[in-house]
């Protein structure tokens, strides 16, 4: 899939490019609004990531302009200026999602996947993990056709996030940012992730051992799926 990254902060643009390329996206990068405006007029993209704080261009104008030529692209707004009015305006103008800087690259990727799933209506949203089936649409885990109702919303979020980033180590920090990132809080302790994982293992173990959920010592967790 083709991604256009419009970000005036070169170091950040470069990291976004490395990361998304790693996830098999084909990336192009613009550091300013003028060249971005030229690019969107000529090329077609699946994703356009726009930094609202461009020095030479009003970010929302660029969004409007890009939508003319790329009406089917998915737009994600990136901004350090997280004012609510911009947020409302951005979504009104047809941006698909919104990420406030600083954001986790994994978060960006999971948002992009969610949009892909939504836009292309992917049906195969059930992932097989050992004896378990994880239905990402209905947000349930089943074993032998029966739903494991003991799994809480938070616990499911963690499993789903690990599935999204399958076969990669997701650090405790990344996991806790995903599930608690929007809470403004006076401490930052990722140890609770361990408690959550412990609970998940205990609940699943009642049916069969979840060997696919691996602990990466000292770092975090990983879900292994053989493809």
């Amino acid at each position, binding site marked *: 899939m083709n991604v256009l990254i419009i970000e005036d902060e070169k170091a950040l643009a470069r990291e976004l490019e490395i990361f998304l390329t*790693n996830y098999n996206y084909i990336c192009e990068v613009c550091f300013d609004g003028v060249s971005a405006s030229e690019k969107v007029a000529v090329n077609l993209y699946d994703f356009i990531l726009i930094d609202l704080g461009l020095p030479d261009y009003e970010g929302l104008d660029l969004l409007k302009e890009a939508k003319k030529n790329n009406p089917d692209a998915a737009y994600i707004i990136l901004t350090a200026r997280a004012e609510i009015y911009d947020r409302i305006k951005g979504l009104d103008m047809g941006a698909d999602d919104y990420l406030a800087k600083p954001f986790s690259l994994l978060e960006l990727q999971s948002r992009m996947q969610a949009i892909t799933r939504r836009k292309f209506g992917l049906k195969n949203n059930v992932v097989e993990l050992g004896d378990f089936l994880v239905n990402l649409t209905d947000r349930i885990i089943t074993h032998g056709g029966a739903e494991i109702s003991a799994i809480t919303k938070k616990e499911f979020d963690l499993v789903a996030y690990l599935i999204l980033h399958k076969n990669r180590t997701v650090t405790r920090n990344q996991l806790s940012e995903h599930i608690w990132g929007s809470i403004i809080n*006076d401490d930052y302790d990722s140890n609770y992730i361990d*408690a959550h994982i412990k609970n998940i293992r205990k609940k699943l173990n009642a049916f069969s051992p979840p060997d696919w959920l691996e602990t990466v010592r000292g770092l975090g967790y990983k879900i292994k799926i053989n493809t």
Partner: protein
Amino acid sequence: MKLRTKLTLFNTISKLVIVILFVALLPVLIKNINQNYTDSRLRKQKDKVLKTVKELGIKYYIQNGESYAAYTPIKDVYVSLEEDTLNENLDNIKNEVRKVEADTIEYRILSHNFHIEKRNYLLEIGISQDSVNERTGPLQSIAFVILVSMVILTIIADQVYSDYILRPLSLIIKTKLIGNKFPNFGSYKEVKTSTYDFHHLDISIHQMIQTIESTFQKEREFISNASHELMTPISILQSKIENMFEEEDVADELKVRLLEMQKILNRLKSITKTLLLISQIENEQFLKEDKISVSALLQQVYDEISIRLQDKNINYQVNINNDWNLVNVNKFLLFNLFFNLVNNAIKYNKEGGDIKVEALKEGNAYVVKIIDTGLGISAADLPFIFNRFKKLRQSLQQESFGLGLPIVKSIADFHHIKIEVASEKDKGSTFKLIFSPELIGS
């Protein structure tokens, strides 16, 4: 006491004192005046008698050596003239008692000796004191009535005038000082006055408020700008670290150190985000249009925080007497308010402690109480708990940077929610939130 009251009191008291003094001294004064008047009457009378003697001779009064005496029927005035056998030479006025027929009367008496044809004569003219004194009483009461009514009139006049002249001052106090929320970025409205002092006061207060406001504004702008500017470098660092994790040739040992870096970066991010949030709240960049029930809000908090309760084995109880809806609030902010309060109650609690959350109606007020059995706050520290970066209580296990309660305070202020804290060292704390009526929906 108000300035106006003080002035009125002083005016009234000082005038009354003067009037009372005057009325008390009145008899003495009147007596003095009367005596002078009487004396001059006596002298005139004497002159008249002497003139008659000179013109008509002593024989007009005295014949054959007999004394002359005359008095009015009520005996208030008498004149006597006789030959003086004593060789004296009087010319004075005295108060003396005389017996006239059967009555003993006190007289003011002029005695005067004069010589005619080598004989010594004594003239006495007396005016009775009663006739003098009986005028004093009525005079005194008339004076009293006139003076008191004058005092009352002047007090009223003083009152009206001081009311008028002090009006700008009370206006300054009412509009500029009382009920003025600082910082209040309202416009300046001049208080009209012709009194220079009040004008000066008004201008000075205005200038002081302006200075405070501009300092506030600068501080807010600085925090807002600084935290915004920090977001981009943090964002770059975060992305770099995340990308390094993805690289295959990074050794596990190095990854552990990367994780530590990530953790520290998260702390920086958390502080910056919190400061930014506080500045956004203070700049009123949030809408207050949500409606949510207290029970739903507390349930959301519980969902997010239950893992922390479980981790510390804390007994958590929620009692909602009668649930109510909060209106005109910002759900995101209120969630964070409760999250931080409950989180603090956990953080500063002991292993296996208790937390009780009570939502109830106390009289007319809607109240939520968060009660913990934790470390408590000492009375000396209590006034400072809402200050930024003030770490008073040593948390047992977690890292915190002292912005939890400042967030709570800004969110509460933004919604006009009153917070009361009661705490006892080593016993626990109670945070009480009092919701104003405009936040209560049906």
